[in-house]
């Protein structure tokens, strides 16, 4: 019982390490919480498709310049 209490206290201390974010305006705070909900667990499920979409949009907008950008990035290490 003491172990369970200790672990529960430790978990509660960990969860309440910071206060919840308040962005000042209610709609901003709600929007922030809505976006962040998908980034807290397995964010790659959102990030990877968006990245491919962004890459494709860059190609539509800039055309073959993205090939030059990628060449530059490949030398970037």
């Amino acid at each position, binding site marked *: 019982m003491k172990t369970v209490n200790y672990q529960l206290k430790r978990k509660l201390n960990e969860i309440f390490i910071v206060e919840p974010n308040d962005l000042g305006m209610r709609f901003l705070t709600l929007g922030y919480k809505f976006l962040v909900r998908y980034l807290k*667990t397995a*964010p790659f499920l959102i990030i990877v498709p968006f990245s*491919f979409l962004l890459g*494709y949009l860059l190609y539509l907008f800039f055309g073959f310049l993205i090939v030059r950008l*990628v*060449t530059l990035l*490949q*030398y*970037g*290490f």
Partner: protein
Amino acid sequence: MDFRLKVNFKKSFIDLITSLIFVFKNFFGLIFFPYKTLRRLSFEKDYYQSFFIFFLIFCYFKFVYFLKDKPYPATFNFLVFFANFFLTLLFFYYLSLILNKKRKDISFLSLFFTFSYSLFPTLIWFGSVSFLYIILPPPRTTSTLGIFFSIFFLAYSFSLLAWKLILVFLSLRFSLKLNFYQIIYLLILYLLWFLPYSIILYRFKIFKIPFI
């Protein structure tokens, strides 16, 4: 008087292996549950884990030394990276002391720990790009395959950048107890000096893209 140094090598070895296992566990935790993992890591005190991460980075610099043309010694590059890393930590730590009223809750060692874990996306990007340099060296062409690869590479880079930003944000949030606006403010201030500093590093051919 007996001055023999008593080192329990068996215990130290077990501690090292345990820390290595935790590094792998936390790495996968950062991919699938970054929020909960970094929140837990902000309480962590096992500095062998940070040692492994920096050792991996040192191995990367050693590997890349053989790919570059007229490079600086790998140890020099690693020391410059380490200095940049500490400059970054000191910047965020001392500014957070000004911004945050609850100073006793802020821990430099916690920031060091969480920030060292946030180096994983950087290490993965640089490692994969240097590996690609061997198997698929630039320049890229404007053929169909070249364009597909370019879109894929950009998506890969954006994904890792987004992951990096998430980990940096969470590191600052949990280690320095800052709110959203304070973190954005600090990041803008950070970029104001870090971008010109990166250009200086580029001019001296130390880092083309800053390793941070």
